[in-house]
């Protein structure tokens, strides 16, 4: 009777019945998807892990091999993450503060680990450092073991987590500009003072954020590490590899118990990440409020 009602922003704020149905359907669909493909599997990990009781769960985790894998994973992460931190900072600094030839090339290179399959990354290292690789003969002459040893695992992890810190920092530092650093230099600060007193305080949250992402990835990395590790139990198995081995041996309870540790690590990093977003977001919000008043 009234003809067509124009669709405007107000009609989105005061939806018609049909629009309401559509909205509910969309929300339900995405929730169902999340439930089916994310939450349920994660829940299964924990129920499977605990299916034979708490004692067996604890025993599976306290197996010497699992404990070793846990330690190795921690070791690899504690080497790879600081390396990435330093590299990420250096690269971001260079890219956002200097003009040089090959800058766009460097930016592209930083993204390579994200676009290349981790398996390929692992194979590249085997090709270079393996017994029959380019440096293989020289390495074995000097009794250095890279492939099928811990150094190879570290290298592969570093490669895969390479971009995380830099990718967080570059856009952030670009947006901030270098005005404050120039001001500090004119005021007589040396490079060290500029970095510690001006640059770092400004980028610390973005830096921490990128580091957390890198840490979480380096703990969970499977593909690249799998190729270079050689799966030597008690020597070169990280936690993800240990999970796979236990699973292949039909030791399901132990496999899920180990997997639950990885899941837990992921949940914890997500929690820290969220907490960071909330605190920094709040901080910024507060400052804006104060500035307005």
């Amino acid at each position, binding site marked *: 009777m009234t003809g067509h009602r124009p669709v405007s922003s107000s009609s989105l704020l005061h939806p018609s019945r049909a629009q309401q149905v559509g909205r509910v359907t969309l929300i339900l669909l995405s929730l169902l998807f999340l439930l089916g493909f994310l939450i349920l599997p994660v829940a299964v990990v924990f129920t499977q892990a605990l299916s034979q009781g708490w004692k067996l769960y604890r025993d599976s985790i306290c197996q010497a091999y699992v404990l070793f894998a846990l330690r190795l994973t921690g070791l690899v992460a504690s080497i790879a993450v600081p390396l990435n931190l330093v590299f990420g900072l250096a690269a971001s600094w260079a890219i956002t503060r200097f003009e040089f030839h090959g800058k766009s090339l460097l930016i592209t290179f930083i993204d390579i680990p994200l676009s290349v399959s981790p398996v390929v990354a692992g194979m590249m290292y085997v090709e270079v450092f393996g017994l029959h690789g380019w440096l293989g003969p020289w390495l074995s002459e000097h009794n250095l073991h890279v492939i099928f040893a811990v150094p190879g695992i570290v290298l592969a992890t570093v490669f895969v987590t390479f971009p995380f810190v830099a990718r967080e920092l570059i856009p952030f530092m670009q947006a901030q500009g270098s*005005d*404050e650093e*120039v*001001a*500090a*230099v*004119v*005021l*007589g*600060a*040396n490079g060290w*003072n500029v970095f510690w*007193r*001006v640059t770092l*305080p*400004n980028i610390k949250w973005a830096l921490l954020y990128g580091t957390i992402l890198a840490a979480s990835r380096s703990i969970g990395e499977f593909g690249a590490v799998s190729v270079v590790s050689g799966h030597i139990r008690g020597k070169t198995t990280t936690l993800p590899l240990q999970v796979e081995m236990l699973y292949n041996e039909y030791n399901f309870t132990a496999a899920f118990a180990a997997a639950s540790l990885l899941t837990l690590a992921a949940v914890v990093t997500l929690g820290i990440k969220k907490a960071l977003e909330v605190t920094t977001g709040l901080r910024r919000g507060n*400052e*804006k409020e*104060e*500035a307005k008043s």
Partner: protein
Amino acid sequence: MSIQIEHISKRYGSFTALADVSLTIGSGELVALLGPSGSGKTTLLRIIAGLESSDEGSILLHGEESTRHSASRRGIGFVFQHYALFRHMTIIENVAFGLRVQSRLLRPSRSIIRERVRELLHLVQLDSFAEMYPEQLSGGQRQRVALARALAVKPKVLLLDEPFSALDAKVRKELRDWLRRIHDDLHVTTVLVTHDQEEALEVADRVAILNLGKLEQTGTPESIYNNPASPFVYNFLGNVNLFHGRLLAELSFEERAGSTERSIDSAIGFVRPHELELSRNLPADRRAVVASVLRVHAAGPQIRLELSIAGSGRSVAAELSRKQFEQLALVPGDKVFVWPQYIRLFDDDRAMSLLLDQGAGI
């Protein structure tokens, strides 16, 4: 401390930012580098500061060659257009920064730093803002903090890069006067970069006008305003003079055609809006053109009129005092006779200026 700028040239690829610029700034002087954007004024300032290197030439600070000294060792205070305050530090920390980063040997004790910072905050009238963060301050307040921060290290030279251009007109005017008072108290050699001719003429002891990387003219505000050396300077110092030049070129052609003077026909003439005389009747002893009134802007101390010359249709701006305007009682559409009191002619090639007193002659 004096600044000697000697034959400075700077190129960015094929673009020449500065071409053989030489200028000496005396100790305790306040000099404004004035020019449109792209004239090289900021580049020159950054070269003096050591933030940019010149391709040729040298900078002498107090007679001492300092081209090779890094920015951090030149003893310079620099104030940026967009403040560049340290956003994670309080105001007091910002101002103290330059003192705190000095090497252990030179660094004053904590109590001396605290005392000095307090003095500076008092100087810039921000005592009660000490514990706040830059984000909580207005633009004008932030720029005052930036100035205090620059002054904290007792710089021998203070460089200001368009310090007030990001502020609104009223604050800009206040800060301008305030800067002049501070300069009169401290007598720090100061270089102010600006594109605002009013700001330069009002604040500076001396103005250096740059155009396309070249120094056009230097002198006191008065001498520059009264004796512009080139059409560019004339044009840049007044607000609305380009069409006057064309009008009066035409006018001068017309009235010079019968005269015996040579080489005038190739010159450009300028008249400032307030130098135009208007009358409803043609005065007996003058030549004048007829124009019609297009628009009247009556807000403000001076009444601005837009006129259209009869015949050519060229539009011209004139300025009258309120009293004159009330006597004439002009409204849009009225016909009026127009003639210049003064005309300034520039020879096309040599940009030489001749001041003619037209008032008596025509």
